[in-house]
């Protein structure tokens, strides 16, 4: 009787594991296909039936990309813009979230609500006028201009995440720091920030991800080829010379995704902790 029950349970768990594995396989298949296509010579790619396993593996698609200084430039631009955005977001969001977590002041809730509602405003409408402002201020085709715009749209989530990390630290920490004679800035930088390091990492990576992903603002603000970021460069190469070279396009896509995917795998723990910390407050 007991062995029968045990067996039934294990069959059910086998089915469960199989379901999970099949689901993972389906969801990851597009990524597998992107990688396989990127190492397949074009003449094998454009044939039926599709080669589900890689054949005649080649890196020629990759060498075509990195031989072009213009394409390397897209990568550099993306790194500069995303890195700059992360810095700016941290500089702005750490004080603001510290304030929302620790202090009370007039209009605090109104200020928090207005920051959170940023993601509601149609980016396109903002871009129409921002574009003309940027023309006047000379910010079109500058790193500064795109970094500023990217940062503002990453701010709401950054502030919300950082605030939830500050909220987890007991207020007694601030008090004992003050008794030891630390000023408010010292309390923040010496006592609280080291303890919120996981939060800072989560915010940094999230911001890097969203800035690396940005297409619309980069498309509008960066109009010269030398200033374009990776997503825009990638999309426009598709309209142009890669129109039928899917091997090259997929190699370009893999190269453009790799920094982000590696970063995610490396910092996965912080990312998931950070993403879910804000949403699940009990």
């Amino acid at each position: 009787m007991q062995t029968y029950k045990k067996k039934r349970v294990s069959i059910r768990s086998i089915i469960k594991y199989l379901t999970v594995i099949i689901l993972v396989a389906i969801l990851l298949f597009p990524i597998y296909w992107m990688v396989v296509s990127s190492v397949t010579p074009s003449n094998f790619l454009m044939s039926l039936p599709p080669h589900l396993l890689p054949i005649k593996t080649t890196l020629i698609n990759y060498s075509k990309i990195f031989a072009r200084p213009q394409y390397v430039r897209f990568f550099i631009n993306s790194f500069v813009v995303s890195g700059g955005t992360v810095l700016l977001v941290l500089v702005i969001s750490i004080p603001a979230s510290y304030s929302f977590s620790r202090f009370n002041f007039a209009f605090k809730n109104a200020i928090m609500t207005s920051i959170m509602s940023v993601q509601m405003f149609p980016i396109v409408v903002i871009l129409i006028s921002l574009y003309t402002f940027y023309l006047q201020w000379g910010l079109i085709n500058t790193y500064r201009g795109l970094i500023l715009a990217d940062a503002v749209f990453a701010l709401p989530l950054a502030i919300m995440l950082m605030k939830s990390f500050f909220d987890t630290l007991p207020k007694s920490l601030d008090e004992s720091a003050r008794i030891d004679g630390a000023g408010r800035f010292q309390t923040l930088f010496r006592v609280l920030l080291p303890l919120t390091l996981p939060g800072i990492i989560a915010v940094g990576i999230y911001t890097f991800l969203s800035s690396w992903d940005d297409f619309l603002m980069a498309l509008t603000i960066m109009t010269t080829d030398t200033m374009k970021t990776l997503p825009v460069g990638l999309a426009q190469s598709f309209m142009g010379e890669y129109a039928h070279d899917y091997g090259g396009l997929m190699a370009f896509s893999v190269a453009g995704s790799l920094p982000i995917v590696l970063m995610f795998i490396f910092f996965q723990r912080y990312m998931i902790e950070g993403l879910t910390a804000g949403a699940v407050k009990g």
Partner: protein
Amino acid sequence: MKKNANNLSNDRTGKIRFRMNNSFFGFFLTVPALIVLVIVVALPILKGIYVSFCNYTISNLKDPVWNNFKNYIKLFEKKDIFGYFLTTIIFVLLTVVIQTVLGLAIALLLNTKLRGRNVFRGLFLIPWTIPSVVVALLWRWMLHQQFGVINYVLHKAGITDTVNVSWTLTGILAMASIIIASVWKQLPYMMVMLLAGMQSVDASLIEAAKIDGAAKFKLLWHIILPSIRAVMVSSIWVAIMNNFQMYTIIYNMTGGGPVDATTTLSIAAYKSAFQSYDFGRGAAIGVLWLTLLMIITIVMNHSNRRAVNDYQ
């Protein structure tokens, strides 16, 4: 005079002085955030609302001219705007509903006793990290009319009778293709949020229900769903907002076509402004879109005050 009086009372009880300074300090810390917000969001939005009432094109970039609601009148006369609204609502509704249902199902599966749950969760999240442009180009390649792997699989499985289905030829297929690509990218995030919500549900509650002999479905309906309601509402709200903004995947997969079949509000506004250089029309589409979002937010806030407040 008044300032002096304040100082006096502060000196008497150090505590009051401490608190007053704190509230100013607290506000001071938010100033950088407020400044960038005003520059990049508030000013452009206000100017955007103003120019939506103006004749404002590439030829008069410096001075928009008031034109008596002509942008709006034309949008409603030509009835374009109704199509954009309908397309947007279909896209947002289907994308959000599908990812919520699938996300919930996968989260329930991962919330059971499962070895290596964190590894699976990490694997499930990878599509979420792929840049949107890559998502669009990758799905374009997989749905390629002649050599697309999906057409091949569908044909082999006997679902389609030709191996050359053109996913950009008819409106329905084009809409399906942008929804599939968007769901693929967004599903992992939704799933992880719902899973996190489930993991914070009191385990003793579930045990008690199991001992009482509650059926699986009842357990889901009466215990799990109510407990994750706050997370669910806030994740759905974020998904709705994001998909209203969706531009990258649609533009790079269908370009809004065939004809206007996948032209959502965001595609229509951008095309008017930056391809036809009719900034006034683009802004007017945006303002109507903003009005719709505000109505949705008020309704959601009203019916779900607690959950939305929790998110904020």
